């Protein structure tokens, strides 16, 4: 091995460490908390944490697609609240048809209606962005307020409690979403596995996934290659709405109550998870796997700090520092990668 090749090899070691930074971060937080918090690695705690992580992971998966296209979806937290309220309202009160009639749906129907609502709000976001040329930040900021306001209007700000349902109307059994388990694993984890696998498949192996990356990497070139840019954008916002609806259903089922303020600031956690996982805010880059690891890092960090008894004020400070550090390392990796590539070209020449 020649001396000239040495710095190159050194550069790629650092580079590989940087590439694996989310893994390393995950490993570090798990290792740290398993020492300082005695019950941290117990099965019960791990399952509990996974359930917390899953909620953010759903939103972060949807958010990842949106961010890869170069957009942002601020409305997911509000959609969580609204979808939970709609499901709760349908269980408790059904739809009032006037003249003394009320229409009740069974639980599978309510789930489908709620998912459809999430997709519909996503479609509205997408149409605002593609047809009316509203910037994604503004369009979804608008729907953030509209959805939250609608959630509050549904019950005049009150909670829909006790979603046990009424056997006479066929509205019982909602609890299985939040409390049900298969092979000792909670329902939400199974749903997350399915959604994550589908999302990763879309990203890696379908033309749609390729188009999502192309639109985020260079929208003009994508359009000139015959990619229907607007359809791609509609899809990502609808998918994000779908993910938000899932979270709204799971939370209201776990609590067996729907509260209109549920989901506030969830969008920020979702963005944080995506960014931690290596999704570039300028579009074109990101992976579903990275995002899920990012969601785990954030979730474990906050749960672990709670177990340690760290105040919630300090938790926020620490979370913020971790997010910024992740992006700083990301930028450093980009620079180093470019330098290594140039060195290689220079050596070949």
């Amino acid at each position: 091995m020649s001396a000239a090749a040495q710095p190159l090899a050194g550069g790629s070691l650092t580079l590989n460490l940087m590439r694996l930074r989310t893994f390393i971060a995950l490993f570090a937080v798990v290792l740290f908390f398993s020492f300082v918090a005695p019950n941290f690695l117990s099965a019960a705690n791990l399952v509990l944490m996974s359930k917390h992580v899953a909620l953010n992971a759903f939103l972060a998966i949807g958010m990842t697609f949106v961010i890869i296209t170069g957009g942002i979806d601020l409305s997911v937290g509000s959609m969580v609240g609204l979808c939970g309220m709609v499901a709760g309202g349908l269980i408790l009160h059904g739809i009032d048809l006037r003249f003394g009639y009320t229409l009740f749906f069974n639980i599978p129907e309510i789930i489908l209606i709620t998912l459809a609502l999430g997709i519909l709000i996503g479609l509205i976001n997408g149409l605002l962005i593609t047809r009316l040329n509203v910037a994604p930040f503004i369009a979804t900021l608008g729907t953030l307020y509209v959805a939250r306001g609608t959630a509050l209007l549904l019950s005049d700000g009150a909670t829909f409690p006790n979603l046990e349902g009424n056997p006479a109307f066929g509205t019982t059994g909602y609890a299985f979403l939040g409390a049900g388990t298969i092979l000792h694993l909670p329902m939400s984890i199974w749903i997350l596995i399915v959604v994550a696998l589908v999302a990763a498949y879309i990203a890696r192996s379908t033309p749609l996934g390729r188009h999502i990356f192309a639109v985020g990497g260079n929208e003009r070139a994508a359009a000139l290659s015959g990619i229907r840019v607007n359809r791609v954008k509609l899809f990502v916002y609808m998918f994000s709405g779908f993910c938000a609806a899932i979270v709204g259903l799971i939370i209201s089922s776990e609590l067996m109550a729907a509260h209109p303020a549920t989901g506030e600031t969830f969008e920020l956690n979702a963005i944080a998870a995506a960014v931690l996982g290596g999704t570039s805010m300028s579009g074109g880059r990101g992976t579903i796997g990275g995002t899920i690891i990012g969601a785990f890092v954030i979730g474990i960090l906050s749960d672990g700090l709670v177990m340690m008894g760290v105040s919630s004020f300090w938790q926020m400070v620490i979370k913020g520092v971790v997010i910024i550090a992740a992006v700083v390392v990301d930028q450093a990796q980009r620079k180093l990668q470019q330098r290594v590539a140039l060195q290689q070209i220079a050596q070949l020449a």
Partner: protein
Amino acid sequence: MTELHVSVAGQPVVLRLEGVSKVYSGTVAVKHADFEVRSGAVNVLVGENGAGKSTLVKMIAGVEQPTLGRILLDGDPVHFKDTADAMAHGIGMVFQELNLFGNLSVAENIFANREIMRRGRIDHAEQERQAGTLLDRLQTAVDPRAKVEDLMIGQQQLVEIAKAVARDARILIMDEPTSALSAPEVEVLFRVIADLKAKGVAIVYISHRLEELVRIGDHITVLRDGRVTGNQQMKDVDVHWIVHQMIGSDAKDFATPGDHGFGGEALRADDICLPRITGGYAVDHVSLTVRAGEIVGVYGLMGAGRSEFLECVMGRHPLASGRLFVEGKPVRERDIGGRIARGLALIPEDRQRDGLVPILSVAENLTMASLRKLTRGFHIQARAEADEVRREIKELSIKVTNPRLPVSSLSGGNQQKVVIGKALLTSPKVLLMDEPSRGIDIGAKADVFRIMRGLAAQGLGIVFVTSDLDEVLALSDRIAVMSNGRLTALLDRADATEAKIVAASSIGHGPNRTSEQRKVLQ
């Protein structure tokens, strides 16, 4: 030698470039160029696209620094580290690409970075008054308080000129100042130039419009491939001399045309029109036919509507009208995807902006437009994709060690081949190529030309746009010339001459040129 020049010309040399070279990442833009700028004179710089004119003047204006050689101002060597430095030495420049702040007013633009202050605040009233005086001198009715983005492009160009004039430069560089001006506006500009000349200002003037140069120039310097090939007083030369110096006699490395015959009609574009927002047409009722196996070159100056014509055919402009036929069948699809499916493919002029997704890999860029072909159900067939990528890399001899590297890591020529490969993977019947050799080195150019010849031999119809006379003459089976949005000439290879093409490319650019053009065309 220099003394002789001074005595002959009668005007002192204020600035001199000696043996100046400029190298950009691998390509040599200017090679050992000598250039003299005389005060009280219009020093014309002319050459084809990519000959190095803009690079040369950017070194004078401090935008770029020479790699080799030196710049002498009043006989003393100087080194401008940026435009502000050059400006401090009395050198101003009107840039080809307008350097204006659209969101600011005309007056604010003219006094940008040298605002008139009064008691610690900008004196807007005084700025507007002075700007008004300047604009009056340019005989334009622009309101100094109007926002620049609300002006028409010609007016913006006048503001850019006013900005440069306002700095009282001793040396004023104008890079294509008339490209967006109407004929009366050009006359006004020429009067202003005459004024400045009388005051002893040295003007460096770049333009493609040869008649313009002959009219206002005092000295002419011709550049070709980064070298100075001619340097004369304007009164001693004519258009023929200029064209000869610009083009030279040494042939470039073009692939020779094959002997294959032409097939049936591949593409017929009928009456293509694209309205301009500012009125008139960017593409003005253009009709063109390409046969299978035929290469049609479209020549014209910047802004002649050539790129827009290709974009209309490709379906990029929703406002475009006209009829299209591929292999005789009408094309009703109005979207790009539909037209790709019908066998049309575009290699855009600006590959960074329109051709590539730099963050994605070579392979992903190559198959971006043809994924449907490689997909079964929802699934991209990874092996089929890898095969196609490998085949295309080999066929176009793209130099890349691993197709999974980002496309941005390739050289310009190889990036261009990726864009061509992407188009070819859609199995097109007609290839529309917009300046396919722009910004790539000589070797890659030769490759691209060979590829074009090969594709034509395989039966593709090719329409390519170029601003390079050599290129259009050597590669085309037929030559279409566009000017001002219109098709002004359609010549067979056998009848085409430089003079005819150049003449047809400036039809409609001025009131008093048509008679001479007609003469040349006959």
